[in-house]
């Protein structure tokens, strides 16, 4: 079947088999290997991407289900050379070791902050609870997302301040 999927802002039209999983479509057909494949059962979450604005496990989504939809992957997280604050947080707080769960964790972290700009530690833990990490014991992942929340709050405050001064 022929599908058109908007991935990271770019439309991709491809012929895919009905059974092709979204994770394999992204990795094998589009060459976006930042999204990983880990368990086939939606348990580990290394394949987490956004379908429209919602994080999904792309190992249990068919590529055809993404036809006409927007997909965002880790490759679409940075704004050019400028890393997303969530990416910056993972670097600053040592939120990763082997890096295999990292793209999925960051996509979930970004989605959480879009919905809740000031999440508590418990809220962050709940948000990433459907994803596994075997290296970090989660501590620094939680800190990384919290770092990004703080960073963005500070940036917003500076923007507001500048706006008030301008007025």
């Amino acid at each position, binding site marked *: 079947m022929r599908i058109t999927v908007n991935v990271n802002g770019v439309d991709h039209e491809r012929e895919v088999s009905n059974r092709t999983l979204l994770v394999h479509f992204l990795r094998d057909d589009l060459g976006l290997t930042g999204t*990983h494949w880990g368990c086939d059962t939606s348990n580990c979450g290394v394949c987490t991407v956004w379908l429209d604005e919602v994080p999904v496990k792309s190992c249990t989504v068919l590529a055809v289900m993404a036809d006409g939809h927007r997909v965002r992957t880790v490759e679409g997280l940075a704004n050019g050379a400028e890393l997303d604050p969530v990416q910056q947080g993972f670097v600053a707080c040592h939120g990763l070791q082997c890096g295999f769960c990292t793209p999925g964790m960051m996509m979930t972290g970004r989605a959480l902050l879009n919905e809740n700009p000031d999440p508590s530690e418990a809220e962050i833990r709940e948000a990433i609870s459907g994803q596994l990490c075997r290296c970090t014991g989660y501590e620094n992942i939680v800190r990384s997302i919290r770092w990004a929340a703080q960073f963005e709050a500070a940036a917003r405050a500076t923007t507001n301040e500048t706006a008030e001064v301008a007025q």
Partner: protein
Amino acid sequence: MTSVIEPPAAAPATPMGFGRMVRKEDARFTRGAGNYVDDVQLPGMLHGAVLRSPYAHARIVSLDSKAAEAHPKVRAVITGAVLETLGLAWMPTLSYDTQAVLATDKVRFQGQEVAFVVAEDRYSARDALELIDVEYEVLPAVFDAKRALAPDAPLIRDDKEGKADNHIFDWESGDKAKTDEVFAAAEVVVAEDILYPRVHPAPLETCGAVADMNPVTGKLTLWCNTQAPHAHRTVYALVAGLPEQKIRVISPDIGGGFGNKVPVYPGYVCAIVGSIVTGKPVKWMEDRSENLMSTGFARDYHMHAEVAATRAGKIQAVRVKVIADHGAFNSTAQPTKFPAGFFHVFSGSYDLEAAHCAVTGVYTNKAPGGVAYACSFRVTEAAYVIERMIDVLAYELKVDPAELRMANLLRPEQFPYNSPTGWEYDSGDYPKALRLAMDMVGYDGVRAEQAQQRERFAAGDRTGTLTGMGVSFFTEAVGAGPRKHMDILGLGMADGAELRVHPTGKAVLRISVQSQGQGHETTFAQIVAEELGISPDDIEVVHGDTDQTPFGLGTYGSRSTPVSGAATAVVARKVRDRAKIVAAAMLEVSVDDLEWEKGRWFVAGDPDSGRTIQEIALAAHGALELPEGVEGHLDATTVYNPPNLTFPFGAYICVVDVDPGTGVVKVRRFVAVDDCGVRINPTIVEGQIHGGLADGIGMALMELIAFDEDGNCLGGSFMDYLLPTSMECPSWELGETVTPSPHHPIGAKGVGESATVGSPAAVVNAVMDALGPFGVRHADMPLTPSNVWRAVQGNPVRTDVAIS
């Protein structure tokens, strides 16, 4: 309005040597630009898939692959019969046993490799597996290690000539006669059957390989997520008869290893054969079920432990008998002379008169493996059994388990300490670490809270949870090892390093070990920086490519820093010494007149007269006349043969709340004090400890590879094999003491596995402590709600065979 919102702390700047710094690896990993084996795409690449046995033990009556071969997208079907014609149906294991690559006579565990399909895409390869028709004659099987040596147990390894039982080895350590003597005279003896059940390291990236045999040059390039690329290359040379220089193993970014990626798996060999047969590159990636069911598991140690002590609480001796379940093939990866790994460090952190262990290895109809999951070659089992037994003794003596430990710990003045099983512990201040952990957790406060709770409970109040506090004090033995004693397949466990300073003063370091997330590209650059004063940002670390790096045995058993970290320091010092000669020539002074400060040689008494390492590097490549016998350029090589292992240690305290009505355990706090000697990058050390603590929660409470009565693996997916999530893990509370290793060039000890080794006992001890009011002395891992509940009912289960 003035903002009160402060931005978060910025990432630390790069230090000139040791200290916190951002990892160099993170630039690619946070952009999704890592290069894992499944990311490798080659022109014309084909995909392989493995047909596996549905039975634990069965004779192969017939195998028909015609229909699979006729599949339009299939390029080759490789069977055991095909491999037999090439002499490749069996391969040697890292423990001098043999293992079937593809089964020819019979299958010996569920999930064993039977056939390999090579097709144009990964889905078609899987489709074709369904078209292979195998007729099996199911045989009786044995899954319970304790029954493996029964006279009527089915014979698993009838492929081995003259083999009449399922026995693999007997091994012992310590002085049996002396130990028995102490026990015979002891005032108190406690005994317990303790199981360390089979678990799986379950790295999030499964095992896989891309094999590319170039038919013109005859060179095989194998991308494979192996933790030991050099050892693998040698094995392939020995197995397949390929010349070693014609094999290049590239171990790219690895998505976690934990020992799971040390062995050579049949899938790798099949991918190589597939590439030879088709003339195309062949990728094989196992799926999660294949990973959990067939690759290197961990533990499966069935222990009977005894402790002898005085009534006053002086621990005198320990003895342990073990049945070690190695599965259907003995493929454990460990030093040759140590079939039970370093289990004989089980005397732990205590001053004992005697200790003895006897380990019997057996075959069962289960997947092969045993040494994996951050175990430091079975130190995990050793630390667990001794730390569980100390609590069993405390229970019997009715004394506080922390006080009992404090009274028996080795004292600082006893180091270097010769243990009753032959180890020489290098350094330690054990009481200091335990005291720090107790202070951090507020030991007396938690005990007071618990006492009040127990009073309410005794008065009949059943509304609340029960708090438990568990202590674990571990001593590890890591950094294998001295080549005189330690080898794998005859390859001594010494590792090479090569350092070259370029004309502009930047450097490249080539090391034999391979990172699976440990951050070698950062920490090894920091070691060079510390020694030479070249910024870590200016040092490229090359690893994971046998064509580009010196020989060495790889990364496992926490050996990278103890062995290759030492090699790196030594090679940097060699470069520094060479730089001194060049500097002397530049300054026209004697080398004896020069002194070193980080980054430059200068004339003693005249600090302004000096040359930086960068100036020296340029001169060493330039026209400067060098003294007789001194070659130009600025580089060095070394091979580091460690004089001893390093012995990191730590004190862990876990606080849990247990609901006796449901058996649910909630980990409230976890305090971990680690001493791994000098810390190169404290952030990375802490991260490694965090990960190991999560392992401890997982193994103690959740993880289990069990088997039913038909030999079905009950942990074959992440829906069945439960790993800890962010919800089960508390926020870790870390502390540290620093006792440098006296024999390591920079005083460092291994740390990658410390927390995995030390933490399970703390969690189990905490749960048992919570269950004190029910008179529960011991129950086996994993302490799932149902297993806790059964223990509370006085009916604990054999968790590994799912029988009550």
